[in-house]
């Protein structure tokens, strides 16, 4: 998703320490291989095991977790299976929320990235720095701060009441909008940075050519600029959408029971009293499959489109 290709350009093709490559990669295998790849595989196995009460599993193979996710067999499990909409609904809402948050990031992030990329070269890095600073502040603290600002008797409502824009406090916390705002706040720089990089490479001769042919500014934006910087927009959208989908803090703190998302559903299976590890593992596997699917489609389009 991020990072340079293994065979980047120029000096990176050096072979000066030839023969040591495998050894130097061993620590990476030791950590990411053993403590991430292997655990993810094990989690996949757990999703097919039987749940034990109060957390944990017993090693009996079953499809019960996936069955519980997709089908409703009544209270005693003896009725004919109907499709269970609860969990599919939670996933669907998460996709929807993450999508709207991505759209919000795009609508605000594109003009911002464009504005920054068209400043004088020296000013650009200062502007970029300004946009990225909040990202480096602890995510929990940012989310709590957002909740503090938009709560019913919080500073935002006081300010709006004082200006006379509203006559009653807006109740924003525990709404879908609050969750989207929280996700927007969490991941905005991921949208701005790739679009900025694309706009910076944009050749303004194209805009001149469009203007010579009597295209207005907005026509040029729609027909010339957007298609050219599209790779940046797509990359930014994926970088925002993917972490939003499995986000936990923003939905948990800014949303209520009505805005329950995948992250909270999974967390509950491992923390709450209703713990069900195989079911949590199954939900995680389904989330992982969706995310890997999105990334795979993106990667395939990247190589197909060429550069």
């Amino acid at each position, binding site marked *: 998703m991020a990072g340079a290709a293994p065979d*980047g350009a120029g*000096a990176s093709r050096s072979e*000066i320490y030839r023969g*040591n490559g495998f050894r130097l990669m061993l620590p990476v295998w030791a950590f990411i291989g053993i403590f*991430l790849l292997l655990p993810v595989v094990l989690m996949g196995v757990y999703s097919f095991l039987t749940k034990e009460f109060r957390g944990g599993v017993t090693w009996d193979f079953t499809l019960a977790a996936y069955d519980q996710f997709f089908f409703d067999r009544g209270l005693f499990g003896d009725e004919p299976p109907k499709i269970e909409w609860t969990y599919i609904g939670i996933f669907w809402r998460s996709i929807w929320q993450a999508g709207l948050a991505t759209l919000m990031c795009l609508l605000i992030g594109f003009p*911002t990235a464009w504005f920054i990329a068209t400043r004088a070269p020296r000013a650009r890095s200062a502007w970029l720095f300004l946009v990225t600073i*909040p990202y480096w502040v602890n995510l929990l603290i940012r989310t709590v701060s957002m909740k503090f600002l938009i709560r019913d008797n919080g500073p935002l409502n006081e300010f709006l009441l004082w200006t006379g824009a509203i006559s009653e406090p807006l109740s924003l916390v525990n709404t879908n909008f609050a969750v989207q705002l929280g996700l927007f706040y969490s991941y905005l720089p991921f949208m701005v940075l790739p679009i900025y990089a694309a706009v910076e490479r944009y050749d303004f001769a194209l805009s001149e050519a469009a203007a010579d042919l009597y295209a207005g500014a907005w026509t040029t934006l729609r027909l010339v600029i957007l298609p050219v910087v599209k790779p940046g927009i797509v990359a930014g959208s994926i970088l925002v959408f993917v972490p939003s989908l499995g986000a936990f803090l923003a939905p948990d703190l800014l949303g209520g029971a009505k805005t329950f998302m995948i992250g909270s559903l999974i967390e509950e299976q491992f923390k709450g009293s209703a713990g069900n590890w195989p079911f949590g593992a199954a939900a995680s596997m389904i989330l*992982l499959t969706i995310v890997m699917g999105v990334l795979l489609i993106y990667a395939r389009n990247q190589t197909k489109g060429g550069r």
Partner: protein
Amino acid sequence: MAAKTDLRRFTGFLPVTILCLVVLYAPLIVVAVYSFNASTSITVWGGWSLDWYRDVFTGPEAPKFRQAAINSLVIAVSAGAAATIIATAAAVAMNRTGAFRGKTAGFALINLPLMVPEVVTAVASLVFFTAIGFTTGLATILIAHITFCIPFAYLPISARMQSVSDSYEQAAMDLYATPWQAFRLILLPLMAPGILSGFLLAFIISLDDFLITNFVKGAGVETLPTAIFGSVKQGIKPNIMAISTLMLGVSVVLVSLSWLIGRVGQSQQKQT
């Protein structure tokens, strides 16, 4: 010459940029201001005071937060350092050893923590540590943090290494330096800005983590984010705002530092 319209300008883009900055900064500024509130209520403004900062350091919850802060710092420094060493080795392998077996797989592995959703990493880690009978606690937090910090340390280190030509190391080896000497005496000093920003990035990422830590921390062990989360669940209290403002200050200082180091690195590069 007729008045030329600026093709780079779109009406409305400046206001959107300003709106963007307001949305980004308003919550942080508001919390920072309210952390100096003299009133015990978070809603009413009672004038300026440092009461809540005093409460953070000497109040009834002070020992809890002090221990959490120490845990967070110890983990962030150790995980950041370990991830930086591992990422530097990986960057040398990827950029300076030519082709070798498992290179593509290794590169995918480095980026794996960025692709797996955080909540999935958290669940997988918990399941794994439980399955192998590892007691959850500081050690499990540290292992998990090293793992997900590696790609963040790798990005600036690898980028920097790509921009440093290997001719200096080649010259050193022509003068009978061993590969290890060439690496330690030539490449490492040239890489210093990249390694430092890699470490800072990993450090901040470790300090930032809530979700994975919350799954693998075990009973009774807290880091700052998990302690704050536990407290916020019962409502936002003024002492939380004081802690938040302190952490905000630390983040801003560290990021500014890393930015300045990056700038120094860039200007050095232009000279060479």
